[in-house]
């Protein structure tokens, strides 16, 4: 790439500019893909909106180890591994949108502590090993720590809907309170934002706080140390670090002739340069800061066996054993959790979701399905799915329902945890079952014909029907009323009845996961028979 010559300083300055442009470019690409993770007017999504997650070799490794099967969807992650083999952690320095956001945060909240040493140089590696091993034993929590999962979750479940809510509030104010000439400017701006930036409807999320705190936490750690997350925590970074350290790219750092000059190590955002001015290729993310700043212009990178250091990985055997043991123990405790005996009936998975065990092994908590869900039906689970099921998608029908003709969640799932369904498969895919609460349902309690659930029931032959019944209402008057009932074989559990039930608060019809097709033990005795 470069040889260390003083006159090359100009060129290295150009490297930084190119790197920054690349960072901004990929950040914009990421944001565009994020916003495009939405209905586009056709039943099929733009290809590649979930590309970021399919590029992630850390998630790929955990998923493949978990399900012990080859997954073609995750092949693009090999590109990132190859990149690390040849160009070190350039992915972290040049591509990663989280890294770019952190570098931007550094401009706003500069780290107080300029000390070069990384606080917990092995923590990311521990997390990596722990999650890999626990995945093998059926405890897939890689998504809790993966930078992209944290980023997209925080955006999808907090900051994007928040942006919408604040924007709408602002333009509602200008629309209602300000004179026409102001609106002549604000309304076109609002139209453009609506068309290109904002989501089509306001969404609401449980775990909005948790998702935002996780992302904000990662961003605010920049105030402690530059690239704190990347150096101390990121398991993907740890994985790329391991590959880069044994990869082709080597570095040529300073030497004893530099005397007391420590400019390179002080300027290094990754803490990759030690007191001997040797550059650790497992940490360096090729930001080119040191190359530009070196007064002697002697720092360079190349493919030959140069004099770069190979920092020893100081994971003691004992620590490794502890981590491995934890990776084995936690999954086994799961088998005595009460959820193993008595799973939550309210855990309704998206249509096409695999059986629960396989589903959780594959789900990387990327929030793509939650982001794309048209009806705001999918919500991140908290503990309903177990301690290892947090942030996995579950349908909360009082908030939103599964749109009958929509198959987008299966299309965006980067790992196949939700399989891609054809429209016909979707129409017949039972994810749950509706139940009436006749203690509060108006036709039963008050003798009022309501039928909002029946009206909205989307199956072409309605699963919710009604019969005309003579009854004495709560005022003692004999009346005829339309009372709804359910045709078990036709209900697919989409939840629109629960969403639209006009009662305040609790719905008089609610959906559970009873009868879901993906789970044979959960079949309804009323029509599947006792097996």
């Amino acid at each position, binding site marked *: 790439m470069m040889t260390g010559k003083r006159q090359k300083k100009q060129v290295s300055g150009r490297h930084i500019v190119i790197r920054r442009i690349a960072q901004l470019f990929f950040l914009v690409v990421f944001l565009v893909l994020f916003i495009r993770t939405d*209905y586009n*007017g056709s039943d099929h999504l733009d290809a590649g909106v979930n590309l970021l997650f399919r590029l992630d070799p850390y998630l790929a490794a955990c998923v493949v180890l978990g399900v012990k099967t080859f997954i073609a969807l995750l092949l693009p992650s090999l590109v990132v591994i190859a990149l690390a083999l040849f160009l070190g952690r350039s992915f972290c320095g040049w591509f990663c949108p989280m890294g770019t956001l952190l570098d931007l945060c550094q401009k706003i909240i500069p780290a107080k502590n300029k000390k070069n040493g990384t606080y917990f140089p092995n923590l990311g590696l521990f997390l990596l090993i722990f999650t890999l091993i626990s995945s093998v034993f059926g405890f897939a929590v890689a998504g809790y720590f993966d930078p992209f999962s944290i980023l997209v979750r925080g955006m999808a479940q907090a900051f994007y809907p928040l942006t919408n809510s604040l924007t709408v509030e602002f*333009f*509602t104010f200008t*629309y*209602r309170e300000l*004179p*026409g000439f102001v*609106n002549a400017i604000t309304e076109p701006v609002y139209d453009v934002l609506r068309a290109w930036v904002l989501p*089509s*409807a306001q969404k609401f999320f449980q775990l909005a706080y948790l998702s935002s705190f996780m992302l904000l936490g990662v961003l605010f750690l920049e105030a402690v140390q530059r690239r704190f997350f990347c150096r101390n925590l990121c398991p993907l970074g740890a994985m790329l670090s391991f590959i880069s350290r044994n990869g082709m790219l080597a570095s040529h750092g300073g030497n004893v002739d530099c005397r007391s000059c420590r400019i390179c190590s002080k300027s290094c955002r990754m803490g990759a340069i030690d007191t001997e001015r040797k550059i650790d290729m497992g940490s360096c993310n090729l930001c080119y800061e040191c190359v530009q700043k070196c007064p002697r212009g002697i720092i360079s990178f190349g493919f030959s066996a140069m004099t770069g250091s190979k920092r020893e990985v100081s994971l003691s055997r004992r620590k490794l054993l502890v981590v491995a043991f934890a990776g084995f123990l936690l999954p086994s405790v799961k088998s005595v959790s009460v959820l193993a005996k008595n799973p939550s009936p309210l855990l309704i998975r998206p249509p096409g979701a695999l059986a629960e065990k396989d589903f959780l092994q594959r789900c990387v908590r990327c929030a793509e399905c939650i982001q794309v869900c*048209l*009806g705001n039906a999918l919500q991140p689970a908290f503990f309903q799915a177990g301690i290892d099921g947090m942030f996995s998608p579950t349908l909360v029908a009082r908030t939103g329902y599964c*749109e*009958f*003709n*929509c198959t987008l969640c299966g299309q965006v799932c980067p790992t196949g945890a939700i399989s891609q369904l054809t429209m016909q498969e979707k129409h017949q895919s039972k994810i749950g079952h509706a139940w009436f609460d006749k203690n509060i349902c*108006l036709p039963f309690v008050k003798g*009022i*014909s*309501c*039928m*909002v659930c*029946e*009206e*909205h029931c*989307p*199956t*072409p*032959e*309605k699963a919710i029907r*009604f019969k005309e019944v003579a009854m004495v209402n709560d005022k003692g008057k004999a009346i005829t009323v*339309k009372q709804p009932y359910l045709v078990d074989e036709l209900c697919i559990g989409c939840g629109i009845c629960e969403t*639209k*039930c*006009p009662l305040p608060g609790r719905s008089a019809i609610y959906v559970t996961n009873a009868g879901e097709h993906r789970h044979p033990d959960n079949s309804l005795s009323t029509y599947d028979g006792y097996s």
Partner: protein
Amino acid sequence: MDRRKFVKEVLLWTAGLGLGVPCLKVPLLAAAPPPTLGVAIGKDYPLLVIKAVEAIGGIEAFVKTGDTVVIKPNMGWDRTPEQGANTHPLVVRSLAELVLDAGASKVQVFDYTCNEKRRCYTNSGIIDELKKVGDKRIRWEHIDHRKFIPVDIARGKSLKRWEIYKDALSADCYINVPVAKHHGLSRLSLGLKNSMGVIGGNRGKLHHNLGQELADLATVVAPKLTVIDATRLLLRNGPQGGRVKDVKVVDTVIASSDPVAADAYATTLFEMQPKEIASTVAAYKMGLGEMAIDKMEIRTVQV
């Protein structure tokens, strides 16, 4: 009428002060002449619209040059045209073209959908047809929740106050273009039921006394012209259907300035009596229109 002025006036009306404002008041049909109905039958759906409207005096009777017009189809469901749950796209398009030819300055097309709004607009086929007209005066837009304003329904017996979409009230000419179809609770969904697409709030609540509340709503949401798309009738599993075998093709379009008469006539296409539809009866009793078929002047045109 500009927006601020309009909002101010609505505030005045809702305070019960602006009694002279014509837009929200429907005159009582005391000794009015019999309502005329244009009924066009044939395979050429765009032409049916033209002929049906022609039969009741032509579009010029409703739209003057420079008028702002709202066309309110039923496109509330994520269903395709052949499934009969939404107004036929050709009917909407033909009407839009008619209105543009009459010199309308702006034609708004919208519906507060039941399924996801973009899917409904797209799969109803209506937006695609309107795009083909290629006239910038046509605007299809999704419901903007800022435009719902609470309106007192002075003559309402059951529904006294509700949020109504501003544009539906402020347009110079509001045209209701429902599709005729089955509906579980109200038996049929016609013109009066279609008005639910311009109101906000918890709309399901209207179901609890649906016939009367639709009639109450009709006292403020009063179309100058009702064009009922009965090209296809959804006979069962309404109002959203989903099976082509539940759809009967009868190739008919009905136009009238009397919303009750239009509904009453459309009811007969289902081989039902107007008196079986609670909203028709309630609206008739309130003097909002005629429901007796033999008291209407029906001008049938075979196309």
